[in-house]
């Protein structure tokens, strides 16, 4: 159990050390950053199948802060760290476009620390603190290029993010005022004993607004397209791939299922929000010509699928939602890295200006083809399986309309990505791109790793992998407020 704090300590130490490195050792931050994320990948794989509670400082449960590791946390940990590793690998060459790599790596690792902390913690206020670490690092990273658009996107993101954080903190304050504790398990226990009242409902509404803002669900999605398209490519991959899921979806699952306990009304709200995001996101994406902006709108839509699946509340729906969550992390990160490669080579994000790049950039073109088919839900790639499960779950739960909408959104996604493939990679090569080259080796390696994952992640559904990885996470969600008993019993 002693390795759990390492998820926080390791990236934090490296993040504190990196700014002190002299600029003579130009390679050192690259090496350190990648080593850290690689180690974290191994660590996170090594905790698969473990459960337990780690009490920080040795204090008993409600006194101190505790870290909880269970199926859901492990699922998130593995996803976060794998995507983070691919992103740092990609950054080695990509971030040569910007100055101040030291600060970039430091901020990146701080963001990673924040996300790991959010996933591991078992304390409500501590969750807020780590959520703020991750958010603040991401505000700075979105504006990292300091161009006008980037700063503006960063400011918009910052303002909405702080409003969201304020809602969350206010919710925590209301909960503390009516329960008197901050430990998630204890809160859940007390709520179960005394039942819901208005104050707790108000807190739940505040949480939904706050986390919904962080997850960019549809009424609150305004910041996402700007922020995700303006950030440097590896950061976009992190933001779209894992940050919105950790700060938004994971926290919603924890709060709604494990603390308050799911009810008809909450489930309905989640399903409505999910469906709205799914449909509106994809409709908005259709008209986009900016490569990264298009991807950003698709993020909204795909997050809608996840929330829809989770909101259904049936075992199949939750399985589909969680599976789609990790699938989306992988293929959306890959797509953003592809977009970054195209931008790196051509210097533009407008799709009309591109064309025929598959001749010159075979690796990028192949990997992006895989990712596009995956996001559009074409068999045998991973996106197909998770979408199939979600649609089946909708029908099983008696919501054929939702299933139909999910299918329509999927078809529209396919259309949108056919457009991407056609304009960017196929067609004839334009004159002005005659002298571009494939991106450097490490960037290719990062993309290939993710695309291999895309192809083989369907295998997670075979029984052996399913039992050790996906099923524990589904069980955690299903047990609902049983979480309290399990954690307090440790």
């Amino acid at each position, binding site marked *: 159990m002693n390795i759990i704090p390492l998820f926080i300590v390791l990236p*934090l*130490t490296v993040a*504190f050390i990196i700014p002190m490195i002299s600029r003579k050792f130009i390679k050192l931050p690259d090496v350190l950053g990648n080593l850290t994320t690689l180690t974290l990948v191994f660590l996170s794989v090594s905790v698969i199948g473990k459960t337990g509670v780690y009490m*920080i*400082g*040795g204090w008993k449960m409600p006194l101190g802060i505790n870290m909880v590791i269970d199926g859901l946390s492990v699922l998130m940990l593995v996803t976060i760290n794998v995507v983070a590793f691919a992103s740092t690998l990609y950054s080695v060459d990509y971030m040569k476009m910007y*100055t101040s790599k030291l600060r970039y790596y430091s901020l990146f690792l701080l963001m990673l620390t924040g996300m790991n902390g959010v996933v591991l913690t078992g304390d409500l206020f501590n969750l807020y603190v780590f959520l703020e670490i991750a958010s603040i690092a991401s505000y700075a990273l979105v504006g990292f290029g300091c161009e006008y658009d980037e700063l503006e996107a960063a400011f918009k993101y910052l303002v909405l993010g702080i409003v969201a954080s304020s809602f969350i903190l206010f919710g925590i304050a209301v909960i503390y005022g009516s329960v008197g504790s901050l430990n998630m398990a204890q809160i859940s226990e007390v709520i179960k004993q005394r039942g819901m009242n208005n104050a707790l409902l108000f807190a739940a509404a505040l949480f939904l607004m706050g986390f919904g803002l962080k997850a960019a669900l549809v009424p609150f999605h305004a910041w996402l397209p700007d922020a995700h398209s303006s950030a440097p490519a590896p950061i976009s991959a992190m933001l779209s791939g894992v940050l919105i899921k950790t700060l938004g979806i994971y926290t919603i699952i924890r709060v709604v299922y494990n603390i308050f306990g799911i009810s008809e009304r909450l489930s309905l709200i989640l399903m409505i929000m999910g469906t709205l995001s799914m449909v509106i996101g994809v409709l908005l994406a259709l008209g986009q010509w900016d490569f990264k902006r298009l991807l950003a709108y698709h993020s909204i839509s795909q997050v809608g699928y996840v929330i829809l699946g989770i909101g259904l509340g049936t075992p199949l729906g939750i399985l589909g939602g969680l599976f789609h969550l990790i699938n989306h992390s992988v293929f959306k990160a890959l797509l953003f890295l592809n977009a970054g490669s195209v931008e790196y080579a051509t210097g533009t994000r407008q799709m009309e200006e591109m064309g025929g790049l598959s001749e010159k950039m075979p690796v990028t073109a192949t990997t992006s083809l895989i990712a596009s088919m995956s996001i559009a839900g074409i068999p045998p790639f991973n996106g197909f399986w998770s979408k199939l499960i979600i649609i089946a779950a909708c029908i099983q739960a008696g919501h054929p309309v939702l299933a139909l909408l999910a299918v329509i959104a999927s078809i529209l996604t396919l259309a949108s990505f056919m457009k991407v493939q056609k304009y960017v990679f196929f067609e004839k090569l334009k004159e002005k791109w005659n002298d571009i080259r494939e991106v450097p080796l490490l960037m290719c390696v990062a993309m290939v790793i993710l695309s291999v994952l895309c192809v083989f992640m369907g295998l997670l559904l075979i029984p052996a992998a399913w039992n050790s990885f996906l099923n524990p996470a589904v069980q955690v969600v299903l047990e609902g407020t049983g979480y309290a008993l399990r954690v307090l019993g440790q």
Partner: protein
Amino acid sequence: MIGMTLIVKTIAQWIKSFIFLYGVYITLYGHLTPGGGFAGGVIMVCSFILLTLAFGKKKVLSKLSKALASELDSIGSLIFLAIATLGMSIGGVFFGNFIQKNIPGREFALLSAGMIPLCNIAIAIKVGSSLFMVFIILAVLRVVEKEGRLEMIQTEMREDE
């Protein structure tokens, strides 16, 4: 513009060490009286801010340069983290309080409460230096118009990039 009038300068000269000392006091006695590392660190910074406002930036930066502040920032955080990790290696748990904290009869002494004073000092260093940097980078910055476009000027100081 180098500083303010003579009166301000003289008084600032007298007061600054008292403010600094008060900050140190607040930090060290944080576990006994109100206050603590954070408040102490901010108060220490206030003495530097007073100096900056009174004498201009050059004099202050000669005492505490930006690079040093940046390093102190990292070092303070690292000390705090190191205390936490030492708790793990000595005390067995992350953030374990590894120094004996309850010596009988010495409950209100300066050297009590285990790692709390150490943490206070680390936080004071960290907070002090980082807020000093905030002040320097934000408050001394000027946006001026230069050759038709706006530009940020950090007067007589080069960014380290």
